[in-house]
């Protein structure tokens, strides 16, 4: 059976083809990530345009996968407006295979500086799933749960994702971590429930039945 890498090695054997592919991937990725980050921050195109010092149609052009005339200065301004840094680097074609695999809204999202867990772990929201698959999020010292009010059973929490606050609607009390529930988290994320959305590669139940996560 062919692996993903060997398929691409064969497909990209032709130089002109692989450069055309990489260029189209780059344009698609940049435009898609701009939209993803703007929406992650809850900004409309008009509001983002204002921050950037341009007009809404200008933002629309930047968010179009067919845009190909990127200017480094423009990208730097976009990065600053979104609270992230711009990284430009020369890469191997092999790494493109991995980038392709990670092409999705959740994988393209980035926290802004204030929410960057590497720099400010206390301020960063942590998201975990409780025993019943419901999401709980830590914001500062509080745990918030996104579904029915109740007692979240988040013994085996783990930092998996960063979620916009608007996805969370209620507050819950969380029990203290307990070694007896070690492994629950892994079990939950490996099971794909029906009608799920995906967040950073982890399926998320679209809706929890009432009381499903009350201990």
């Amino acid at each position, binding site marked *: 059976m062919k692996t993903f890498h060997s398929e691409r090695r064969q497909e990209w054997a032709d130089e002109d083809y692989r450069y055309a592919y990489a260029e189209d991937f780059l344009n698609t990725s940049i435009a*898609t990530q701009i939209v993803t980050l703007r929406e992650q921050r809850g900004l409309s195109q008009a509001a983002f345009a204002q921050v950037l010092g341009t007009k809404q149609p200008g933002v629309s052009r930047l*968010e179009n996968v*067919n845009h190909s005339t990127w200017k480094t200065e423009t990208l730097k301004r976009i990065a600053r407006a979104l609270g992230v840094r711009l990284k430009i680097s020369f890469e191997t074609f092999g790494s493109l295979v991995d980038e392709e695999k990670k092409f999705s809204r959740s994988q393209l999202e980035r926290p802004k500086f204030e929410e960057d867990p590497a720099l400010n772990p206390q301020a960063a929201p942590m998201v975990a799933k409780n025993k019943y698959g419901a999401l709980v999020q830590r914001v500062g010292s509080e745990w918030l749960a996104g579904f029915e009010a109740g007692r979240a059973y988040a013994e085996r929490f783990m930092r998996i994702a960063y979620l916009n606050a608007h996805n969370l609607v209620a507050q819950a009390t969380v029990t203290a971590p307990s070694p007896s529930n070690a492994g629950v988290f892994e079990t939950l994320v490996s099971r794909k429930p029906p009608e799920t959305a995906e967040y950073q590669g982890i399926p998320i139940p679209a809706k929890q039945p009432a009381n499903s996560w009350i201990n």
Partner: protein
Amino acid sequence: MPEYVLWDFLEGARFENVILRWVQDERLTKRDRAALNNRIRRLAQTDYALAVQTKLLAGPIYKHVYKLVIHADRMLRPMLCRGPIDNETEYTFLLGAIEINWKLPRGSKEQAEGNREVVLSNADRRCIHEDIPQ
């Protein structure tokens, strides 16, 4: 990794893959084929709202028909629909097209819609999407 399952319409008595046939007939260049493969793969990974927002997917341009907008050596506009068996989990490529002066070939949108109806009445009239040979 893929969020959507992609299908290709099978046309004619010989059940030919309509997209592969189009690529061959139009003698698409390497650049065309590379862009086509990339866009189609990204479509499979992108949620519908984001695909529309970034213009990866445009439409509906006619009834249930959408198009991919790809500026390569030529203005490639493969036409497709959501579903049609399951609109939330799949897309079906219905017809290949090239825009000239920002216009699709006459009758192509209608033909694409017709192909969609064929799939609805006979699910064997499509196959899992095949990569475009480079």
